């Protein structure tokens, strides 16, 4: 009576089929059947947002929907970010933003934050800070205190808005990026105003270095 059913999902642009019992949550199909473990599970109640994915472009909590309900839809998970054209084959500006702005510590909330950030920037490429906070209001972070997450998404918005410059082969430097930032407390990687030549703080925990463990 609870026979498995074959469902088809277009996940990050690729059509995939999954055999699912009706009671299987979308998040379990994504993690266990499709082996895309970037989407996290952080709670049982629908509160934390770690499981956020885009379904037909809209952010939803994949722990609050059954896989059978997503049959025929397009799902985007954090793994799809670097395949987007804006990523130019590397990290997407949103992912880069979380690295540059220290938008993560343990990283548990990060995939969900990135998907909520993606949904926001798709709708509103130049959001106000308040709009960013509203967009991530369904995503809990126990580590960062949110300030740097907001900055990470602002970073991505800035990058994406100046994409043409980067698209013709040039890279955008930190100086350019912060050129119109008028507040800088003088401390590297603080207050949105680092003027470092290297993208990491000297002597900082190596997991935050750009060759460190958080992106491997």
């Amino acid at each position: 009576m609870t026979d498995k059913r074959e469902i088809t999902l277009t996940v990050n642009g690729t059509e995939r089929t999954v055999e699912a019992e009706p009671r299987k949550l979308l998040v379990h199909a994504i993690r266990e059947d499709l082996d895309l473990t970037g989407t996290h599970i952080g709670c049982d109640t629908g509160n934390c947002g770690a499981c956020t994915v885009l379904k037909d472009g809209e952010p939803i909590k994949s722990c609050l929907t059954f896989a059978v309900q997503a049959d025929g839809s397009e799902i985007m998970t954090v793994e799809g970010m670097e395949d987007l054209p804006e990523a130019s084959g590397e990290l997407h500006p949103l992912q880069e933003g979380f690295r540059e702005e220290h938008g993560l510590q343990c990283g548990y909330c990060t995939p969900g934050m990135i998907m909520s950030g993606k949904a926001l920037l798709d709708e509103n490429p130049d959001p106000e800070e308040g709009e960013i906070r509203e967009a991530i209001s369904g995503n809990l972070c126990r580590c960062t205190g949110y300030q740097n997450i907001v900055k990470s998404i602002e970073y991505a918005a800035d990058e994406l808005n100046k994409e043409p410059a980067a698209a013709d082969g040039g890279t955008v430097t930190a100086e350019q990026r912060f050129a119109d930032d008028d507040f800088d407390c003088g401390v590297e990687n603080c207050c949105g105003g680092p003027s470092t030549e290297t993208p990491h703080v000297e002597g900082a925990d190596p997991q935050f270095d750009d060759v460190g463990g958080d992106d491997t």
Partner: protein
Amino acid sequence: MKAASFEHHEPTTVEEAVSLLESLDEPTILAGGQSLVPMLRFRLARPDTVIDINGIDSLEYLHEEDGYLRIGALARHADVEDTDVIADRYGSFADAAPLIADPQIRNQGTVVGSMAQADPKGDWGSVLIAHDGEVTARGPDGERTIPVDELFLLPYDTSLMDDELLTEARVPAPVEGEGSAYHKLKRKTGDYAMAGVAARLVLDDDGRIEDAGIGMTAVDITNARAADAEAHLEGERPSADLFEEAGELAAEASNPESDEHGDAGYKERMVDVLTQRALGDAAERAGAVKRRVPQ
């Protein structure tokens, strides 16, 4: 935790859904799933069959028609946020929608599903009370209308029959001189209300209150009407003093329970304050001069 096994049905028409409701043994309807999925996961509900109505395209609407704002069973909370006629004419709906849960949940959860859920902490029940709303239930014997005051019986319990599907919630379209608002107190973004108040006022040509509606969230066993406060307002001119009296009457009508967020006395006081604020906004939107009310 995982849900217990169930059979999944996906009707594509209301008729098909109703005949499934009639023929299957204790089926449960799945709309946005934002309340039902957690209940299934915690096995607070263990239905053998789930009738998923998300494929019934005819239930996907939200518009004004024949003198009503009509909310189809598949209109999501986010649709309320994004609908122009609501932003322009239905202050209480426009206030309440962005205060419900969070963006992800609002993309999935439905207004009508909230009515069926009958959670006393749900926001839409109060808004519908303030607007004298009603719902349409469709069962094997056809359609019937249930006024919102007759819908909620107990927490999570409605007067809906097991074989009935709610197809629509609706409120009368606002008349000239009408304004409405919703105020909600919650501990943090995304939370359910500690207390919430929806208010609607209609002013006559003379600036007197011709009709008033007040619905309260999370302060009784169901969403509740503050009938004495409504009666006190009718025939009077809007003023801060009048709204203060109405706030007190609403607080008296409320019946909150103490919990980790506050004791009953505090919540009653909050009902009072939220009522004054909601009435103040409703009066302003109805075209009355803004009166000073405590903020």
